[in-house]
């Protein structure tokens, strides 16, 4: 497990009032924005449990939308994001749910773009730390601590080794990796956390691998 550093203890510089419910919400929004990585026309935020019941008083709704729009955790515009110019071109709505099978601070982003739809689920796990757990129905683990390569593809022989070989050729170390699939030969996901920076060209190359549907390179978040 990752140990805390002094900087973790005396940061982040953020707008209040809660690291999990405000800063965490912004970080989840930012990660979802990078995962979708395409123009967002419409978005529905589905907030669960504590996010649903105490979210309004903590500005969780404002934080989530601000992250989706690309604002950082210390951006003072978060407070007045509703009805602001930056939020003009996006259609957004909120739903509040209770489901104790979900984490106390869970959220689903149901996003529609021009020709892309995606459901991204995340959790705020404490002290501003967050995890994206699901993209559509696939399990992933994106924390914002690492540059992460995410690939959705049709399950077939050799795809994983093709991708990892490309990364190896860049001399970048893989910190951790997780794969998931809906069934043999069905759609699958691969989520690779990296210690270094990946050349953006590799991301383009991955797009052209046979059976690959979607590639995203999600840069680590500033702390």
């Amino acid at each position, binding site marked *: 497990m990752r140990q805390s550093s*002094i*900087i*973790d*203890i005396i*940061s982040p*510089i*953020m707008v209040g*009032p809660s690291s999990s419910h405000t800063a965490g919400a912004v970080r989840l929004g930012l990660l979802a924005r990078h995962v979708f990585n395409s123009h967002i026309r419409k978005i529905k935020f589905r907030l669960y449990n504590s996010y649903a019941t105490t979210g309004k*008083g903590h500005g969780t709704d404002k934080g989530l939308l601000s992250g989706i729009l690309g604002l950082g955790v210390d951006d003072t515009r978060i*407070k007045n994001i509703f009805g602001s110019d930056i939020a003009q071109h996006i259609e957004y709505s909120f739903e509040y749910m209770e489901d104790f099978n979900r984490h106390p601070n869970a959220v689903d982003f149901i996003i529609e773009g021009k020709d892309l739809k995606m459901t991204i689920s995340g959790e705020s796990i404490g002290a501003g730390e967050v995890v994206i757990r699901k993209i559509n129905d696939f399990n992933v683990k994106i924390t914002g601590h690492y540059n992460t390569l995410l690939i959705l593809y049709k399950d077939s022989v050799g795809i994983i080794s093709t991708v990892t070989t490309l990364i190896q050729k860049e001399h970048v170390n893989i910190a951790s990796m997780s794969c998931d699939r809906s069934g043999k030969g069905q759609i699958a996901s691969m989520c690779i956390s990296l210690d270094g920076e990946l050349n953006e060209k590799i991301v383009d190359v991955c797009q052209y691998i046979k059976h690959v549907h979607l590639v995203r390179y999600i840069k680590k978040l500033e702390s």
Partner: protein
Amino acid sequence: MKYKSISTFADLLGECELQEVTIFDIAQKNEANLDDIKVNEFRKIVKKSLNAMQDAVKSGLKSKEMSLSGMCGDDCSRLKSFYSDSHALFGTIFEKIVTYALAISEENLRMGKIVACPTAGSCAIVPSVLIAVSEEKNISEKSQIDALITAGEIGRIVSNKVSLAGAVAGCQAECGVASAMSAAALTQLLGGTPRQILNAVALALKNLLGLTCDPVCGLVEIPCVKRNAFLAVHAVTACELALANVESKIPVDEVVDAMEQTGKLMSPMLKESSQAGLAKTKTAVRLEKSLRK
């Protein structure tokens, strides 16, 4: 100096006494080494946090805006006008500490910019003491950065043993640890030795064991805002005792162990779930109903 992994306060004190240096010397070299940056680059990051804390005091002192819930936000202004007529029994440094603590805490709940230290709910306890004392005693920015690094090192060592989340270990782990960090920062600021700094930490933390996290309506407002002011003053008591060479009979590492155990034994109803304590008083329930409307 070579990097040496430090995971307990005993390690830290041993290293300080061996090398005849103070806590921030060891801490800044280790952190820079781990992040593969130079010590002055590390100090620049710390300076950024310090400056953001100073800005939070300034904006907090100017505002009377209420929180989103409307429950809190105007107490700093009450205190300011009180002190403009009559002075605090304990003098102007005391006035500044409690005023700054409310200023920063209220700035937090009105969605202003603050520094989580270690958490957003406990964000005023370290900076109120650090900034108030430095202003009154004309302490340089360099020394303030030394003190903030000292506070950070204390929080780091505690957090690697106990999670600093109210939901896991109660408020003792948030405001309690913040008060211990603040006591350490102040003792460093006033020229205390590493041994005195660690005694200040032990004394502050020891006297906050079992502090519950039972916020009204589940919001970081009641009792969090005022608690920041109380625990800022608590840090000063710990520091003064430590500077007088009063020792904590229970060593600081064992106090942290006791805190961990206490956190585990505390009912989940008193750990950020707002199911008991202050959160379920008659008035709290009434406030909750009126907020739902």
